[in-house]
């Protein structure tokens, strides 16, 4: 491979984030606790700047660099921008919580930025190895973030579980990749695709490789039966970390699925479609049913994530551009919605008190009509009730599934969303129909309040005008 400076332009955003992370790390060393706000501000401004850099290097046609192992295309641009936006949102929500819980440290932002970098690499991966590198960078940052509250036993336990299961998943993925390498002799997606078209599914090694890759993916996405880590990690991690974990990495996991399955192994579509159908149905069934039994809102949201992953997979398994763009829309919307739902938990949590039991939401409407209304919008959006945007996300996925004559799967999907509606409206019932145990007004930091209001109104605004975002998704996939 010859070095060419022009190769670096498509990866400018990645280089920039890497530089930013290092800069934040170094600068933070020279700051004492009162000046920590500077680290925060630098991170946020830096991320906003990243949006412009990504948009300015973006072009319509795809660019593949570094010997076909790295790609910058429409999908990667859109996903990267949404990752920045969601990370900015998550940092905005979390500042007050971190300060109150004594977690307001520079490392939080450094690890966050490295996680963002990992996600960007996953989003732009064009070979199995690149994808794996990005995934590991993301995972290692997240393990550390989950254990960020060093004094919390639950946090350490969650991090340990996450680490062990994550390592198993990475092992599975690598094992699968090695088999595919053995069968096709290549690691980058273009060559693998060509090789697969020639050999087809004759090769038993390929089948095994595919199975292991799908298992690794399912672990990372949190699809049943590889979902066990999700509830524990969401429950044990500090709330802002759970918020970040539940939103941005979902986008990266979607990208990983797209890159590995669609870019890498499209000739095996009919095989992985079968596997994804099973995973999707199991996820929707188990996620929605078990969520009903939860009394802890973080665990409830964890199971709800599992159910949503089922829906995201339904779009991917359709195997059509409509399906991919529907899935992409769904993932972005889900990430934004879940950001808001966790935002409410952060808003209500005080020093020494986590608003994580469902009963803590009783009578929220009395205490703060505005934020109760926002939470209602998040819940209706997750349940898929119009006029919130969650409805359109579900609709587009169902549309794609019916489009490939899998109407029965769409029926299964809607059936489980009826079950799902129950636990979402239970939150609304608690907020609106029950009497509050305490009538303290909700006081929150201005950052959190603004973020929540924007986030909640977005649910309604996108629900009334979904066309713009959908068009962006369709263009990103098509181009």
């Amino acid at each position, binding site marked *: 491979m010859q070095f060419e400076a022009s190769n670096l332009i498509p990866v400018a955003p990645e280089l920039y984030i890497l530089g930013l992370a290092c800069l934040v790390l170094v600068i933070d060393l020279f700051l004492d606790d009162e000046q920590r706000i500077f680290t925060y501000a630098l991170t946020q401004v830096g991320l906003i700047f990243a949006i412009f850099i990504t948009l300015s290097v973006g072009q319509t046609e795809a660019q593949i660099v570094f010997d076909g192992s790295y790609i910058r295309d429409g999908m990667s641009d859109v996903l990267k921008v949404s990752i920045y936006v969601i990370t900015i949102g998550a940092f905005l929500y979390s500042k007050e919580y971190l300060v109150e819980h004594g977690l307001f440290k520079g490392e939080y932002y450094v690890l966050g930025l490295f996680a963002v970098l990992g996600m960007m690499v996953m989003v732009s991966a064009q070979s199995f190895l690149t994808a794996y590198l990005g995934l590991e960078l993301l995972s290692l940052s997240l393990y550390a973030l989950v254990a960020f509250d060093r004094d919390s036993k639950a946090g350490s336990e969650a991090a340990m579980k996450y680490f062990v299961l994550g390592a198993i998943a990475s092992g599975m993925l690598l094992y699968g990749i090695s088999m595919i390498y053995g069968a096709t002799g290549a690691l980058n997606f273009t060559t693998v695709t060509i090789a697969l078209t020639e050999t087809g599914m004759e090769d038993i090694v390929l089948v095994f490789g595919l199975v292991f890759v799908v298992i690794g993916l399912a672990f990372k996405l949190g699809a049943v039966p590889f979902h066990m880590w999700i509830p524990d990690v969401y429950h044990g991690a500090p709330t802002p970390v759970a918020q970040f974990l539940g939103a941005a990495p979902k986008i990266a996991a979607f990208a990983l699925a797209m890159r590995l399955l669609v870019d890498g192994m499209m000739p095996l579509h009919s095989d992985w479609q079968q596997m994804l159908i099973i995973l999707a149905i199991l996820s929707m069934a188990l996620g929605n049913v078990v969520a009903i039994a939860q009394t802890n809102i973080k665990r409830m949201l964890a199971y709800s994530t599992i159910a949503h992953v089922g829906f995201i997979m339904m779009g991917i398994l359709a195997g059509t551009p409509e399906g991919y763009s529907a899935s992409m829309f769904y993932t972005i919307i889900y990430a934004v919605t879940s950001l808001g739902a966790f935002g409410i938990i952060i808003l209500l949590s005080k020093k020494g008190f986590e608003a994580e039991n469902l009963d803590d939401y009783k009578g929220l409407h009395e205490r703060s009509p505005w934020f109760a209304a926002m939470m209602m919008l998040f819940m209706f959006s997750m349940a898929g009730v119009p006029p919130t945007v969650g409805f359109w996300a579900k*609709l587009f996925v169902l549309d794609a599934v019916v489009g490939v004559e899998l*109407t029965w799967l769409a029926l299964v999907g809607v059936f489980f969303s009826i079950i799902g*509606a129950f636990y979402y409206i239970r939150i*609304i*019932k608690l907020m609106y*129909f*029950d009497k509050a145990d305490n009538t303290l007004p909700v006081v929150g930091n201005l950052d959190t309040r603004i973020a929540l209001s924007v986030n909640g109104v977005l649910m309604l605004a996108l629900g009334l005008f979904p066309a713009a975002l*959908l068009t962006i998704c369709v263009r990103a996939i098509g181009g």
Partner: protein
Amino acid sequence: MTADWPILSLTIWLPIIGGALLLAIGDRCSNASRWMALATAILTFVISISLYCGFDSSTAQMQFVERAPWIPVFNVEYYLGVDGISMPLIILTTFITIFVVIAGWEVIQYKPAMYMAAFLIMEGVMVGVFAALDAMLFYVFWETMLIPMFLIIGIWGGPNRVYATIKFFLYTFFGSVFMLVALIYMYFQSGSMEILAFHELKLGLTEQIFIFIAFLLAFAVKVPMWPVHTWLPDAHVEAPTGGSVILAAIMLKIGGYGFLRFSMPIAPDASQELDWLIIGMSLIAVVYIGFVALVQQDMKKLIAYSSIAHMGFVTLGFFIVFQIAANSDASGGAILGIEGGMVQMVSHGFISAAMFLCVGVLYDRMHSRQISDYGGVIHTMPVFGGFMVFFAMANAGLPGTSGFVGEFMVILASFRANFWFAFLAATTLIVGAAYTLWMVKRVIFGKVVNDKVHSLQDINRREFIVLGSLAVAVLVLGLWPAPLIEVMDASVVSLLEHIKVSKL
């Protein structure tokens, strides 16, 4: 025909924006929110009247059409328009909402602004359901409708409100998601989301039957038809008076409207095949639910069951058409059936609203809905007693009231199909008279049973205006139904011609 003003959009968005404003203002100045709600409701009604005035009843074409692209990628449009079937229902909606606002005037003390706002938003959304000509737009309005009603029952309802409202939400949500899949399926068959394009779509019998069943799940829950009616008595009993009125007067009609707009024209052959199912369910509703109503101890429950029985007439009238077509070539009978069903819907909108308001008047004073707590109300509330007896008579189908017209038309149509259908349907006149009049006898007449009844105050001017206006509406429609029938005639005839042509 395009009007200069986007009247339909105004009718939809004016109350919604008014409701949003009310939410923003809140309860800071106590009476302002009530007056603002009333002004919005009246203004909306006045605007919707112009639909009637500008309506061309000689054509079955959609009128007051508004079209704009909404989600171009999926061909979803903001596409509104009315014909003779939907227009009367829109005016019914705007008319009834005024009384709901007035009825809640003094009674609702807990967050009145939010209460009024919920009803105004509800009004706009329900008008949207009737006016939408794009399937997705229809579905969005259809589901959005659940949110305000869910909150109304849950926040201002009775002691068992949480159970009732969650049951209501899940039942209707369950019904409608299958309709969503059917709509998506047809989108792929036709490449368009227009309801009118679905009407023209050629479908095989198996497809039609699946689509018909998906729609049936949605609409039968909404109407509600036996055996999926059980949410209705719970919801009615727990809902505040205004909620019961909207539920009975308008929400139930949306189910009936759905049969006319979707099931019958989209799947005519399946409707023909499965008409026995609907007719059977309707007759069970009419007869069996009538008997169930007879034994109720709770006034609201009794009226709720009577609503189910009356809606049974509506669905019977709609689907008897297929039997008539099979028996003879007399299309007159078929027109009679559908128009009878429509008249019955509008009339039931007035009467059930009035009945629930009557119960509301009593409940506000006595805080009881048990029939046994009352007796001899006429001695202390003569004016009210007069109204209640009148509305009860209308509910029982007394000639001269609107209740008679619809039932009579449907029974006449049933005769053309099958004597026994008509016979069974006609027995409801007896059962209906029995349960309504027996209730009136126990509540209104007789001796004054207890001190509470003794100290009752007769209705005030506000209540008099509400009940008086509804009484006038019931009488006018009963004595002179021609304007309503005239408006819908062209649309009904064209619908019948459409469903006669097999799609196979």
